[in-house]
């Protein structure tokens, strides 16, 4: 068998009925989940800053205790998935992740791993969402890999509404979000 990684292809515009039939997969934290509640609104934008209305966003994150697939926190689901709406928006209900081990055993700042799919994206783009003003950000090694003037594209910002955070994800254009080669 040919052991080369199979080629990626775009998701296409008509995936909703199969992958996001409802908004259930946007509720990652049940009532009994531990940790600080975060309602995370992600807006997906194109080169002109216009909303991408047929994208799909997936989140992957650790529990509040900083553990992926945390058996001690069964009401928390580390995986979330939503389609963007007519404004390019989707709203995840989750908790702030704890710190997980990073490179050389150092702890990483709290972050959420993001995959973005859309028609016109021949393969997913991968981003990370950090939380603005978290004291651990300054020493985070992955944030440190990004050019300093682009790091603010990786930060979700708290709004005046309690627990509500906003994150604009620019696929390209002057504010292009930092994407990773993983």
């Amino acid at each position, binding site marked *: *068998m*040919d*052991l*080369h*990684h*199979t*080629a*990626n*292809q*775009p*998701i*296409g515009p*008509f*995936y*909703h*009925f*199969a*992958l996001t039939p409802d908004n259930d997969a946007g509720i990652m934290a049940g009532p009994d989940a531990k940790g600080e509640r975060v309602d995370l609104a992600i807006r997906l934008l*194109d*080169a002109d800053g*216009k909303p*991408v209305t047929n994208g799909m966003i997936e989140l*992957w994150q*650790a529990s509040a205790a900083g553990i*992926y*697939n945390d058996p001690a926190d069964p009401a928390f*689901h*580390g*995986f979330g998935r939503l389609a963007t709406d007519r404004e390019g928006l989707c709203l995840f209900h989750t908790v702030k992740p704890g710190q*997980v*081990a*990073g*490179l*050389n055993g150092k702890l*990483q700042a709290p*972050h959420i*791993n993001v*995959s973005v*799919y*859309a028609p*016109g*994206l*021949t*393969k*997913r*783009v*991968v981003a*990370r969402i950090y939380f603005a003003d978290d004291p651990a950000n300054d020493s985070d090694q*992955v944030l440190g*890999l*990004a050019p300093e003037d*682009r790091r603010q594209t990786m930060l979700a910002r708290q709004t005046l509404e309690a627990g509500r955070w906003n994150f604009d994800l620019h*696929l*390209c254009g002057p504010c*292009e979000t*930092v*994407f*990773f*080669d*993983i």
Partner: protein
Amino acid sequence: MQKSRLDPDNQPPYLYEPYHSTAKRAPRQPLIFLPHTLSERTGPIFADTLITEADRDLTRQGAGEPLGQRMIVEGRVVDEDGNPLPKTLVEVWQTNAAGRYRHELDDWPAPLDPNFNGCGRVLTDENGKYRFLTVKPGAYPWGNHPNAWRPAHIHFSLFGPSFVSRFITQMYFEGDPMLEYDPVFQCVPDRAKHRILAKFDLGLTEERFALGFRFDLVLRGPDATPSENGHEE
């Protein structure tokens, strides 16, 4: 040592001019090479209790049988070392035999089939094998350029064991004359095109029942950990 994982000889570029919607969506800044941490090495686990037998038989989701050519699709999901990837969620979606999706925004005038939904899901078995029964999808027009048609295809979404292995592609049919004119298929480098073509397989074909097509998939895995690979820092 940082080695790009982008593999431009085998993976499509983000920007591919003939596929027009890439122009306003393709990232232009260089991607940042990310050494793998727990965040990349872990991934969601899906329970088989969520998947029913009907999920992998797309011909049994309505009151009667859908129209079209009955077709078995089977394959193995492995990593780049050839290790089978068991318990991997495979999600598929497709048009009916006439080329129409059951989707509120698909409005081209081909008939819907009351007996066909066009989506399925299955977990790979202990050998990384998956199998589902469906009908052959049809071609459909799209707006990329005048008289543009998508060749018949089935969309595939797979998770694999980690965030790194997460993967979406489309499966086409070997010998389809429309492939040559489709910029979505053509954005894949020539040497990698055969890997997204399903092969007709007489061994999989069931007598007086359904044609068999084989479609194997290879997913990426995380880098070796430093302890497994002593010369890394």
